[in-house]
């Protein structure tokens, strides 16, 4: 997904090779995938932050000899959480366009021309992300209604989100999975239809 314009693909789905169409690889990701990836990212960010917070409380309690309880009611904890979330998104989007959630659901953030996202653009996208929430989440309508499925922060940062996993390869992996067949049952005497124990039609 990081290869560039040496062999440019047509932008229209009609002009896309059949294999790519089937795999959806490189096509703009839809709402469900992006939402699920975001939920996973929030979970990861929160889990890591809570662990970090617990570790800080523990170390501070030992160091000071007093009970230290940093919780979400503390403004500094909230600020720290937001900073951590900013670092998380900006770092991973700038690194390879994939956060943990994006990696799990096979999504990647790219420039709107298909190129890699630079660190500066990743920071811009991260800063613009709250705007999509602050306007009553209307910033996400573009994912549902836009031709390129871009949210507001995508438009501001000049980015797109695409499927980075090959659904066709996944299908082949599924077909090639190991299958264990049950040992053949001993031949049973023919039973009259409708009699107890006779095999009925499979559901």
């Amino acid at each position, binding site marked *: 997904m990081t*290869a560039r314009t040496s062999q440019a*693909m*047509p932008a229209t789905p009609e002009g896309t090779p059949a294999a790519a169409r089937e795999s959806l690889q*490189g096509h703009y990701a839809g709402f*469900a*995938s992006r939402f699920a990836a975001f939920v996973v990212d929030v979970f990861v960010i929160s889990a890591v932050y809570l662990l970090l917070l617990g570790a800080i409380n523990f170390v501070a309690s030992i160091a000071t000899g007093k009970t230290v309880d940093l919780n979400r009611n503390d403004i500094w904890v909230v600020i720290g959480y937001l900073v951590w979330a900013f670092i998380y998104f900006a770092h991973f989007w700038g690194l390879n366009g994939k956060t943990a959630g994006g990696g799990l*659901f096979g999504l990647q953030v790219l420039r709107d021309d298909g190129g890699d996202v630079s660190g500066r653009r990743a920071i811009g996208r991260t800063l613009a992300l709250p705007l999509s929430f602050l306007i009553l989440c209307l910033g996400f309508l573009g994912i549902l209604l836009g031709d390129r499925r871009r949210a507001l922060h995508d438009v501001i940062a000049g980015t797109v989100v*695409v499927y980075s*996993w090959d659904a066709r*390869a996944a299908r082949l992996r599924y077909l090639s999975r190991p299958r264990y067949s049950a040992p053949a049952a001993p031949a049973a005497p023919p039973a009259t239809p409708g009699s107890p124990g006779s095999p009925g039609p499979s559901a």
Partner: protein
Amino acid sequence: MEAMAQTVAERAISLVLDVVDLNEVLDQVDLNALLNRVDLDTLLDRVDIGAVLNKVDIEEVLDRVDLNRLLARVDVNQLLSTVDVNRLMAKVDVSAIVDQVDVNQVVQQVDVNDVMSKVDVDAIVDRVDINGIVERVDLEAIVEETDLGSIIAKSSSGIASGAIDAVRSRTVGMDEAIARLVARLRSRPYTGPPGPPAGLRVPGAS
């Protein structure tokens, strides 16, 4: 009496022949007119050609003939130009000829490597519609029926497990369902997910 007459006649003929110049006589004879009067067909009917040929030693005749020199004087191209090859080939039972050919033996005598070295494979491949061929291949059936599938699974097992594939497939399915629903609400036809971005090269989508 007869013997004496015979002796006289022979003597007379001998004297006449001594006097007559046969060459001069022959010069005065119109051989063409003479030959025109000869019925050659009748004459040939009376000749036993078989008996004549039996007396001819053909082997000796052929030994004395320089065939190479003879053939060198033949204009083969002109000869062949007069041959109606199509008519000739129509009379040839090609199947019978082919049946007599030991193809295996012929093939064994062929230096395949030498032949292949002269073949411009790139030029041939350029003329082949590989995409068209690939589209006709039922890859899924091949993977199911061969060990290729297990190779693919082993090579990609570190990249994604079956569970992740399943999760991704489901979310993509939800994406499509939502997109179709939105398109229906907007009274617009849905033709599949848009993209990819211009300039993006998708691996494996050659």
